[in-house]
């Protein structure tokens, strides 16, 4: 068919078509090689980290506190701190971020004020994380007197990821077709009933994915936590949210800058643990998305 078509076309047209074909394939290979660069760099990074850190991971490494001797140092305080921060940040950021997203998408009328709010939220997503640290230091640690506690850290990181959660919530609410809402109204449902029973369940996979990805970002943050006064040497595990704490990225940062090569290996091992936590989180996000999407039937 295509051959026939080509035969009928003038020589000039064939030439042009060929040019487009080569253009297309060149673009394809350029795009492919750039994708390759990303993957190769990630691969090198993983290889580097795993080859120097994997042998360091054992039960003792996970259950020991920091030490001046690299061989007996561990990340007990760091990973428990990261876990605390993760859970508390989710508890704070999830309801606030999702509610704000629902309000802005479903209730907010397009006014000047709402435009300003929208622009500001998008801007906030681009603010460097250390600025949030300074904000957290002044408001939570000093003005509210929470000090360098887990609560201060979680509140600060919640602020940091709120814009991301709000934006992703709105995006997934937008994917629910308007006809669903109209159908719900037509059956006599109120706005609240429509949102709660129709819109939210349909958009939940997207919302939860957004939240989990935001949390994965939060647990990799170092700068804002250093600013609010998170510690480096902690030889107890936090037992309440008013306790002081350290997290994995801070421990890694400290070990990387030590002169002894053994500490660098510890850092690599801690990086593997941090990566695993992030991978598990992302895995959960993918799984939930898959499961809940199957449930949605229109």
């Amino acid at each position, binding site marked *: 068919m295509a051959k026939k078509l080509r035969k009928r076309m003038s020589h000039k047209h064939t030439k042009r078509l060929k040019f487009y074909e080569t253009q297309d394939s060149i673009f394809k290979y350029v795009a492919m090689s750039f994708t390759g660069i990303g993957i190769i760099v990630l691969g090198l990074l993983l290889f580097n980290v795993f080859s120097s850190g994997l042998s360091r991971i054992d039960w003792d490494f996970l259950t020991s506190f920091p030490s001046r001797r690299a061989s007996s140092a561990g990340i007990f305080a760091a990973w428990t701190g990261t876990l605390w921060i993760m859970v508390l940040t989710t508890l704070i950021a999830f309801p606030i971020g999702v509610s704000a997203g629902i309000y802005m998408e479903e209730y907010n009328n397009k006014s000047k004020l709402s435009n300003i709010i929208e622009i500001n939220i998008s801007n906030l997503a681009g603010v460097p994380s250390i600025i949030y640290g300074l904000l957290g230091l002044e408001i939570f640690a000093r003005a509210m007197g929470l000090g360098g506690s887990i609560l201060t850290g979680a509140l600060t990181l919640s602020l940091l990821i709120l814009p991301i959660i709000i934006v992703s919530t709105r995006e997934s609410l937008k994917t629910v077709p308007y006809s669903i809402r109209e159908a719900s109204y037509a059956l006599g449902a109120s706005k609240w009933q429509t949102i709660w029973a129709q819109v939210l369940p349909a958009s939940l996979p997207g919302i939860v994915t957004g939240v989990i990805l935001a949390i994965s970002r939060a647990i990799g943050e170092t700068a804002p936590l250093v600013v609010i006064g998170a510690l480096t040497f902690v030889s107890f595990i936090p037992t309440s949210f008013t306790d002081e704490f350290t997290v994995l990225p801070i421990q890694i940062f*400290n070990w990387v*800058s030590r*002169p002894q090569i053994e500490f660098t290996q510890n850092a690599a091992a801690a990086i593997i643990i941090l990566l695993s936590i992030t991978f598990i989180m992302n895995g959960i996000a993918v799984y939930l998305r898959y499961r809940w999407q199957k449930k949605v039937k229109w």
Partner: protein
Amino acid sequence: MKKSIVFLISAALLWSCGGSEKTKSTDSTAIVGGDIKIDGSSTVYPISEAFAEEFQKENNEVKVTVAVSGTGGGFKKFIRKEIDVTGASRPIKKSENEDAVKAGIEYYEIPVAYDGLAVVINPQNTWVDFLTVEELKKIWEPAAQGKIVKWNQIRPNWPNEEIHLFGAGTESGTFDYFTEAIVGESKACRGDYTASEDDNVLVQGVAGDKLALAFFGYAYYKENAPKLKIVPIDDKNDTNGKGAIAPNESSIIDGSYQPLSRPLFIYVNKASADRTEVSAFVNYALQNASILVPETGYVPLTSATYVLAKKRFDTKKTGSVFLQLESTVGVKLEDVLKVE
């Protein structure tokens, strides 16, 4: 049950570490409860960590925590009374001292160790046998920017090849001290060199570049000695050792490696030190520093200096001995502390 396991593990650890690990405890009875908050310089951190780790082991009811905010950041928190102890890689500044006085804070100044700054080159560099302070100044002073770019500009018989400079970043205490000691003014330095706050990056830089010259903490040289070559420094002052002297434990400790060795301090809030756990910690630190400091890669002070420092602490002498001196370059701690 849990406690006995912990005890067994720590006993086993102590056993496996052998005799070198005997630290002296201040008191036969452990202190009950309390918090000790330490912050400050990243250079002093490994030392604070070692003190905290061992002190914690003996007094497991006390919660000792260490954070890293840098020397300046540590003093700020210290003056806000947010912490009890701050580590400093330089003495307290006049302005910081004034702020402390305004906030009604008295403090103890306790020297804990020496840190040498090493000037290093690539092992393939065969021409540099030593450098004088004057030559280093010629290389690093602000006026050298863009002008001193070849080795033969430093000494005519050195090769006509580019010189590649690596050094500590401008935010670090190492940078402050090096510029003060070499150029004569803190923070006065050329800007066209490869700077990094992470000394390991500098080590990599010099190890892979035949034409490189760098300065960074002595501990980083010691850990990477096979990849690097140390440059002896001649300060043209024969009273503290003749000729060019390379940094090592003994030349740093006896003050002959000048002007690139500096004291490290911890500052303790006097009000905090009135608490039993804090004073016990300080005493513990001073009594065990000569064992613990070498393990962290730094050089301990002479035992006489530790005794002098302890005496100052015991007799509750507050304040800094360096406020009048303007600079710690070339200062011998023992002499300064004796005068007091």
